[in-house]
C-alpha cells in the first residue's frame, strides 16, 4: 500500500506537470487548447534538438524548451486564437487543427522514428524511498512539479504581469480603464502556458521516447485534471494528487487500463454533482 | 399545509435567500390575488429580480415556501414551474437570437412540452392562429421572418412579451418590460397590460412611478429584501417610510 501511495505521488506529479500549462491557458484566458499535447511534444523535440545539434546540457535545454515552445504559442495566439475568444467550441476545433498540423509538420521535419533524450548520469540511478525503488528521474519530476507550482504562483501573484492577468480575468472593462492592454495580456498568458507545456515536454521526453504522436495521450488526461480542478492552480494540484493516487491504487488492485477507465467514470460522476469542479476559477464558466 | 389558501393565487411565506453571506431576500412574504396586476417596486438592488428568480425557479430559496394555487412549488425546476402556468420575461431581454421572430413565438407556444410527442409533430395545433393574434398585439406581424438578433431594443422587448403571451401562462412575471422603450411603445404596453389583467394574474417589476400609475392594481414596495409597504398607489405615495427610501434613491439619479 505504501508503495502504491509513493508511486501515486509520482503519477500525480506527471499529471500535474502535463496539466499546469493548460490550467493557465484555460483558467485565465478560457481557451480550450486541444494542441496542448503537441506543445508538450514540441518541448520534447526542442530539448532533443538543443541537445543533439548544439550539445547543450540537459538542464539548459529545459529553459530553452520553455522559450521555444512559448514563442510558438505566442505566434499561434497572434495568428489564430485571438480571433476566436468568443467562440469556445471553434477554439477547440481550430486548436485541434493546429495539433494535426504540428504533428505532421514535426513528422516531416524530424521523421517518424523515435528520438531519445540523454539525461545526466546521476538522474538515471534508482533511489530507495520507504521501501520503494523509484527512478531518480521520477523524483526529479516531483521536484519539478513543485518548482513549477512555485513559479506560476510567483508569476501570478508577485509580478506586474500577474497583477495585469488577474485584473483582466476579473474585469476586462475595468482593467482596460486602467490602461491594461487585455489583448497583449492574453497573448502572453497563452505563450506562458505553452512554454510550461514545453517544460513538460522536456521532462516527458526522458520518461518516454520522443515521437511526433507522443502528445496525443496527454491532452485528454490534462483536460480532465483541469476540468475536475475547476481551472484554478490549486484545483489542478489537488485533482492531480487525487487522480494520481487513485490510478496507482486501482492499478494495484486491477490493472492499468481498468484503473484509467474507473477514474474517467468517477470523474463523470463527480462532475454530475459538481459541474464547476473542485475550485471554481469563476468567470469563464457559466 | 395549504388550508388557508382561500383567495390567494400565489402565496409566498418567509422567503430567504443570500448570496455568499449577502442576505438579498430577508423574510419576504407576499400574497397575490387572481386577475390583479401587482407592481413590485423598490430601489435598485432591493431584490426584485431575485424575487422573480425565486418564484420562477431560477434560484432556490434558502428557506421559506411558495405556493401556486395551493401547490407547493418551492424548489421545483424551472420547466416544472413554467408548466404549472408561470411565464416570465427577463430584465435583460432574452430572446433566441439565432431564430426568426416566428420561430421564437412558435417555440414559446409550449402547450406540449413532451420531447417524445414533439418528435412526431411538425406543427402544434392552434399555434398559427395564436401566433397571428400575438404578433398583431405586439406589432411584429411585418417582422416575422426577421432574425431575432437583428431587432431593435424595443422590438426585442416586444418579442419577449409576445413569447410570454404565446406561452399563455396564468401568471406573468414581467421584469422591467418597458425599460428602453419609447413613449409610444410604453403607451401600447399599457394598453396590452390593462387588457391582459382582466384574464391573467401579473407581477410586474418597475421603477417608473408614472408607468406604475397607469397599470397597477396593487403596489408592493420591496426594500433590502423585505416587504416595506403594500397597498394602492395613493396609499403608497402617502407612506412616509416609502418616501424616505424611495425618494432618497430617486433623487440620487
Amino acid at each position, binding site marked *: 500500500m505504501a508503495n502504491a501511495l509513493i508511486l501515486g505521488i509520482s503519477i500525480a506529479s506527471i499529471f500535474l506537470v502535463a496539466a499546469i500549462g493548460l490550467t493557465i491557458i484555460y483558467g485565465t484566458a478560457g481557451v480550450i487548447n486541444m494542441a496542448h499535447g503537441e506543445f508538450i511534444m514540441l518541448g520534447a523535440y526542442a530539448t532533443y534538438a538543443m541537445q543533439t545539434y548544439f550539445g547543450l546540457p540537459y538542464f539548459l535545454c529545459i529553459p530553452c524548451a520553455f522559450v521555444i515552445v512559448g514563442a510558438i504559442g505566442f505566434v499561434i495566439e497572434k495568428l489564430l486564437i485571438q480571433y476566436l475568444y468568443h467562440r469556445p*467550441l471553434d477554439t477547440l476545433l481550430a486548436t485541434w487543427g493546429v495539433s494535426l498540423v504540428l504533428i505532421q509538420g514535426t*513528422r516531416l521535419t524530424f521523421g517518424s522514428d523515435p528520438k531519445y533524450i540523454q539525461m545526466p548520469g546521476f538522474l538515471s540511478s534508482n533511489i530507495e524511498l520507504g521501501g520503494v525503488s523509484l527512478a531518480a528521474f521520477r523524483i526529479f519530476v516531483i521536484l519539478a512539479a513543485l518548482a513549477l507550482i512555485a513559479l506560476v504562483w510567483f508569476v501570478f501573484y508577485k509580478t506586474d504581469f500577474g497583477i495585469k492577468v488577474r485584473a483582466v480575468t476579473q474585469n476586462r472593462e475595468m482593467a482596460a480603464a486602467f490602461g491594461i492592454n487585455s489583448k497583449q495580456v492574453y497573448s502572453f498568458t497563452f505563450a506562458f502556458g505553452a512554454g510550461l507545456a514545453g517544460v513538460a515536454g522536456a521532462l516527458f521526453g526522458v520518461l518516454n521516447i520522443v515521437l511526433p504522436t507522443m502528445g496525443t495521450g496527454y491532452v485528454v488526461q490534462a483536460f480532465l485534471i483541469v476540468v475536475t480542478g475547476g481551472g484554478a492552480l490549486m484545483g489542478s494540484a489537488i485533482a492531480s494528487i487525487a487522480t494520481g493516487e487513485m490510478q496507482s491504487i486501482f492499478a494495484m488492485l486491477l490493472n492499468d487500463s481498468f484503473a484509467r477507465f474507473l477514474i474517467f467514470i468517477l470523474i*463523470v460522476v463527480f462532475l454530475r*454533482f459538481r459541474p464547476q469542479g473542485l475550485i471554481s476559477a469563476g468567470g469563464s464558466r457559466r | 399545509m395549504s388550508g388557508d389558501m382561500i383567495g390567494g393565487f400565489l402565496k409566498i411565506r418567509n422567503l430567504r435567500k443570500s448570496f455568499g453571506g449577502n442576505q438579498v431576500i430577508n423574510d419576504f412574504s407576499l400574497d397575490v390575488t387572481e386577475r390583479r396586476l401587482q407592481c413590485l417596486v423598490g430601489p435598485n438592488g432591493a431584490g426584485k429580480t431575485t424575487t422573480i428568480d425565486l418564484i420562477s425557479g431560477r434560484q432556490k430559496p434558502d428557506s421559506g415556501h411558495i405556493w401556486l394555487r395551493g401547490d407547493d412549488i418551492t424548489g421545483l425546476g424551472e420547466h416544472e414551474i413554467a408548466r404549472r402556468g408561470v411565464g416570465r420575461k427577463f430584465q435583460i431581454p432574452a430572446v433566441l437570437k439565432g431564430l426568426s421572430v416566428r420561430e421564437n413565438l412558435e417555440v414559446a407556444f409550449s402547450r406540449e412540452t413532451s420531447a417524445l410527442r414533439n418528435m412526431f409533430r411538425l*406543427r402544434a395545433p392552434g399555434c398559427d392562429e395564436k401566433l397571428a393574434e400575438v404578433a398583431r398585439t405586439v406589432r411584429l406581424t411585418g417582422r416575422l421572418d426577421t432574425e431575432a438578433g437583428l431587432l431593435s431594443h424595443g422590438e426585442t422587448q416586444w418579442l419577449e412579451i409576445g413569447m410570454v403571451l404565446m406561452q399563455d401562462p396564468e401568471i406573468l412575471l414581467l421584469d422591467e418590460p418597458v425599460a428602453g422603450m419609447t413613449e409610444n411603445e410604453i403607451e401600447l404596453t399599457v394598453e396590452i397590460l390593462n387588457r391582459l389583467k382582466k384574464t391573467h394574474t401579473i407581477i410586474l417589476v418597475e421603477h417608473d412611478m408614472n408607468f406604475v400609475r397607469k397599470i397597477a392594481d396593487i403596489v408592493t414596495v420591496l426594500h433590502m429584501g423585505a416587504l416595506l409597504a403594500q397597498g394602492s398607489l395613493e396609499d403608497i405615495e402617502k407612506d412616509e417610510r416609502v418616501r424616505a427610501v424611495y425618494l432618497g434613491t430617486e433623487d440620487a439619479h
Partner: protein
Amino acid sequence: MLDNPYHNKTLQWLAYAAVFLLIGIVPLLTDDDFLLNQLATYGVYGLLAVSISLCWGSGGILNLGQGIAFGLGAYGMAMTMQMQSQAPGTIPPFMANNALETLPIFWEPFWNTGLGIALALLVPTLFYLIFGGLMFVARVSGPFFAIMTLAILSALATVFVALQPYTNGVNGISPPTGLVIAGTKIDPYSSTAYWLVFALLLICTFTAKLLTQSRFGLVVRALKDDPERVRFLGYNVAVYETLVYALSGLMAAAAGASFAVLTQYVSPAQFEVGFSISAVIWAAIGGRGSLLWAMLGAFTVQGAQSYAGDAFLNTWILILGFSFILVVRFLPGGFAGLAELLLGRLASLRGGRREEFGQAPAKGAAK
C-alpha cells in the same frame, strides 16, 4: 430583402432528393465491385457525419466521441457475424488462443442474429442515454461536454484493448464470412451491400431532416441559442439534449454496424480519438448546420484522401489540418455556409435587377 433560396424548405427537400438520386444510380453505372465497396464505405462515413451534424448543427452539442457509438455498433455487428460462422457449442478461435474455454456470457446473445443486431444498435444508444443524461442533467455543456465525450472514448478504447480474451485486444475481430440475413449472404463487394448502405443512409438522413423540422427540432434549435431561456418556456432541456444526443448515437451505431458488414473487421481503431475527430472535421468542412452538406463533406474529404493516396498521406494530413483551421476561422458554416452566402447574393442580385426594371415588390410584401 428577398428570400434566400437556401432557406426555402421545398428547395431543400428537392436538393436532398437530387443528391440521393445521384448516389442511388451509381450501381447502375458501374460493375466494379471494389469501387462499390469503397463508395459504400463513404456512405457509412456520410452517415456518421450526418449523425454528428444532427447533434452539433441543430443542438450545438459538439460530440468528439462519436466513435463510442460507431465502435460499439461495429463490435456488436462483428460479434454477430462471428457467431454466425461458428458451429454450435464452439468458441471463436481467438478466445481459445487466449485460454478461454467457454463463451463469455455477454457473447451468448450474439448466437441469435436478430438479437445481435438489436444489441449492436441498442447498447450504444443506451450508453448515450445514460452518459448524456448524467451530463445534461448536471448542465455540463459546450466544450466541457465535448471533452467528457473524448475522455469516455479513450477510456473505452483502453478497456477494449485490455479485454484481450473477450475482444481479441488490438487485433480486433475479423469474422470469416459476411453477414447472412434470412438465409442470404451479403457479399460486402456487391451492389446488394451498396443498396443496403444507401437505404440506411437515405432513411437516417430523411428521418433526421424531418426531426429537425418537427417541434422537437425547433426546441433543440432554440436550446442551442439559449438553454436557460428555453427552460422557462416549460421544456425539460436535459431531456431534449439527451434524446438528440442518443438519436445521433443510434445513427452512428447503425453506421458502425454497416462498417463491420462492409469490411468484415473491427478493431479498437474505431475508438481512436483521431477517427472521431475526423468525423467532426467532415461535418465542419461540409457544414455543421446542414445534414446534407455534412454528408457531402464526408464524401469529399474521404474521397480526396484516398485520391491523394498513401504516398501523399503525410502531406494530405497537413493540408487537411490547414484547411480545417481555415474553415473554422473564416468559414464556420463550411461549404454549406458558402452555398448559403452565394445563393443569398444571387437572389439579391436578381432582386436588384428586377427593381431596375420597375418591378420592385410592394414594401409590405418584401420580407
